[in-house]
C-alpha cells in the first residue's frame, strides 16, 4: 500500500473535561474515497475541524504527504491542499457560478477582474469532473438545484488545487437523482487522483462510492474497513458499539 496522503496518529481533543477524540488513528489515500462514519456525537465533526485547521487538535501527530504538519488555521490547511465542503456550502446566491468558485481568490489583470480567465478555469475545473448538469457557468447560484450547488462547491475545491477534499454530509439534503450526481462527482475527484474524505450517515452512499470505511465510536476509531471486504451489518455493529475492536479501551 502506498503512503497515505494524510495520516493521523493518536490525535486527541478535549473540551474542558470532555475528551472528544481519545487518541484517534486515521488515514486517507490519494485516489481513494474514505468514509468517516459514526453515530451523532462520535466526534466526526471535531476530527474534520482539526484537519481543516478550524479547531486544532490538542495532541497527536498529523502527517501530510509523509511530512509532519501542524494544522493551526484554515488558511494554512488550504495552502497545503486541504479543502472542506461544509454542509451549508457557503455560496453566495446572488453571484454566478464562476464568481462563487473564485470568491476570495479573484484573478486580476491590469488591476481589474479577469473574468475571461476565471471563466475559462472554472469551465475546465467543472469539465474535469465531467459536470453535465449545469447549463451555463454564468448562472446565478440562486437558480441552481441542491445538487448543482454541491457541484459548484466541489468544483471550487478543484480550482483551489486541493489534494485532499473533505465533504461533510454532501448528500444529506438531496433527492435520489441529485445524490447520484454528487456521488459520481465524488468518485471522479478520487479518479482524478485526489484524496477524498466523506462524512455520511447514509450507508448506501458509503458502500456505493467509498474505498475505505473508518468508524468512530465515542471518540475512538473502532474500525478501518475495506468496503469490498465488509458488510453493512458489520459497519452498523461498529457504529452502534455492539462490536468493538479488540484492544480499544472504553
Amino acid at each position, binding site marked *: 500500500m502506498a503512503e497515505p496522503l494524510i495520516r493521523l496518529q493518536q490525535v486527541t481533543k478535549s473540551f474542558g473535561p470532555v475528551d472528544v477524540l481519545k487518541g484517534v488513528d486515521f488515514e486517507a489515500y490519494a485516489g481513494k474515497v474514505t468514509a468517516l462514519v459514526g453515530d451523532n456525537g462520535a466526534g466526526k465533526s471535531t476530527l474534520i475541524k482539526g484537519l481543516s485547521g478550524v479547531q486544532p487538535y490538542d495532541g497527536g501527530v498529523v502527517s501530510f504527504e509523509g511530512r509532519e504538519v501542524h494544522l493551526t488555521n*484554515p*488558511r494554512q490547511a488550504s495552502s497545503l491542499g486541504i479543502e472542506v465542503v*461544509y454542509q*451549508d*456550502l*457557503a*455560496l*453566495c*446566491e*446572488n*453571484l454566478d457560478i*464562476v*464568481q462563487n468558485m473564485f*470568491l*476570495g*481568490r*479573484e484573478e*486580476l*489583470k491590469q*488591476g*481589474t*477582474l*479577469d*473574468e*475571461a*480567465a476565471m*471563466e*475559462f478555469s472554472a*469551465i475546465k475545473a*467543472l*469539465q474535469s469532473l465531467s*459536470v*453535465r448538469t*449545469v*447549463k*451555463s*457557468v*454564468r*448562472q*446565478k447560484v*440562486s*437558480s*441552481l*438545484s*441542491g*445538487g448543482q450547488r454541491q457541484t459548484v462547491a466541489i468544483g471550487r475545491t478543484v480550482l483551489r488545487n486541493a489534494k485532499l477534499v473533505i465533504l461533510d454530509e454532501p448528500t444529506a439534503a438531496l*433527492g435520489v*437523482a*441529485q445524490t447520484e450526481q454528487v456521488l459520481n462527482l465524488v468518485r471522479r475527484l478520487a479518479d482524478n487522483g485526489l484524496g477524498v474524505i466523506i462524512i455520511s450517515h447514509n450507508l448506501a452512499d458509503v458502500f456505493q462510492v467509498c474505498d475505505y470505511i473508518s468508524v468512530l465510536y465515542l471518540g475512538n476509531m473502532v474500525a478501518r474497513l475495506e468496503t469490498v471486504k465488509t458488510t453493512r451489518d458489520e459497519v452498523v455493529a461498529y457504529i452502534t458499539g455492539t462490536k468493538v475492536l479488540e484492544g480499544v479501551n472504553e
Partner: protein
Amino acid sequence: MNSQSLGSGHEGSLRDQIGAYFQRLRTGEMGALPAVVALVLLAVLFSALSPYFLTKLNFANLFVQAAELATLAIALVFVLLLAEIDLSAGVTAGVGMAIFTILNQKLGLDPFISIVAGLAFGALVGSTLGFFVAKIGVPSFVVSLGFFLAFQGLQLIMLGDGGIFRVDVPFIKSLMNDNLPGWAGWAFLGIMLAVSAFLSLWDRARRRNAGLVNRPISLMFIKLATIAVLGGIAIGILNENRSVSIIDISGVPIVVPVVIGILFVGTFVLDRTKFGRHLYAVGGNPEAARRSGIKVAKVRITAFIVCSTLAVFSGLLHASRIGSVESTAGRTIVLSGVAAAVVGGVSLFGGRGRLVHAVIGALVIAIIDNGLGLIGLPAGINFLVTGGVLTAAATVDALSRKRSSGSIVRT
C-alpha cells in the same frame, strides 16, 4: 439542456440572446425594467395632464432636479447592497456643507479646500458608522438614526437656528445652473460612446484570448446605437433655446456629465474590481464571504465611507441648485434617496442592484415630484404618492426575492 459542453450564456445567435433575456425576466431578475416602464408611463400621464410637462425647459429641469437625488441614491446603493441603510446620509451632507460654508465664508479658506474638508467629514462619518456596524454589530438602522438626530443638532449649532448662508463661489453655482456649450454636449456623447465601445471590445478581446465564445457583436452595436439615439435626442433637445425670456438658455446642464461620470466610475468599481465583487458577496452571504477569506468588516466600513462621502457631494449639488447652505438641509431627502434606489430595482435584502437602477429610480421620483407640482396638486399629495411608490417597490422587491428563492428546487 446541452449535455456536450458547459456554456457561459455567451453562446448563440442574437435571437438566442434575446430569448435568454426574456427567460431571466421570467425568473424574477427584472432589474430596472419596471422602473423604466414606470418612467415612460409617468411621462405619458403627465404630458396628458399638464401642458407644461413636455416643454424643453421642463425637460432640462427634470435632469437638474434628479441630479442630487440620483447622486444620493448612488451613494446609498453601496450600503443597500450590504442590506444595510444609512438614514443619516442627508444630514451628513448638511453638516458637510456647513463645514464648507464656515471654512469658506467665515475663515476665508479656498473654496476647493473647503469642499475637500466637507468630503473628508463625510469619509469620517462613514468610517464611524461602518465601525459601529461592522465591528460592534449595532444595526445600521439604529446607528444611522442616532446620527440623523445628532447631526440635525450639529447643523443648528454650526449655522445657528434658521441660519442660511449664500453660496457665491462661481464654479459651485455653475454646477447646477450652467450649461455646456452645444458642441461640448455632442463631444460628451462621443466620449460616452467611445468609452462604452472600448469596454465592450476590451472584454471581447479578453474572452477571445482566453479561448471563450463572445456574444454576437451585433449586441454591442445595438447597445451603442441605443445610447447614440437616446443621448442624441436628449442632447438635441437640450441644445435648443429653452428660455421663456429673451436670454438664451441652451445646452446640457453641467451636472449631467458629472452625475454620469460618478455613475460610470462607481459601476466600474462595482463590476470590475475586487472590492466590488466582495461587496456583492458580503451582501449576498456574509458567512460565505468570511469563509472565502474576504475581510468582511473592511468591506462594510469601506461601503459606508463611500456612501457618506458621495452623500456630501450630493449636498454640494443641492447647495449649488438653491444657492445657499441652510441649517435644516438634508432632513427629508434621504428617504427619497432610498425610495429612488428601491424603485429602480435595488434590493433592500442586499446583494442585488446596480447604480444605474438608482439613477433611473431617481428620475422616477423626480418626475413624480415635477409632474405633481405642474398639475398643481398640494405638496401633501406628493408625499403620499412617493410613499406609495416606495411601498410598492419594496413589495415587488420582497416578492421577487421569494420567487427566486422559491425556484431553488429545479432539477
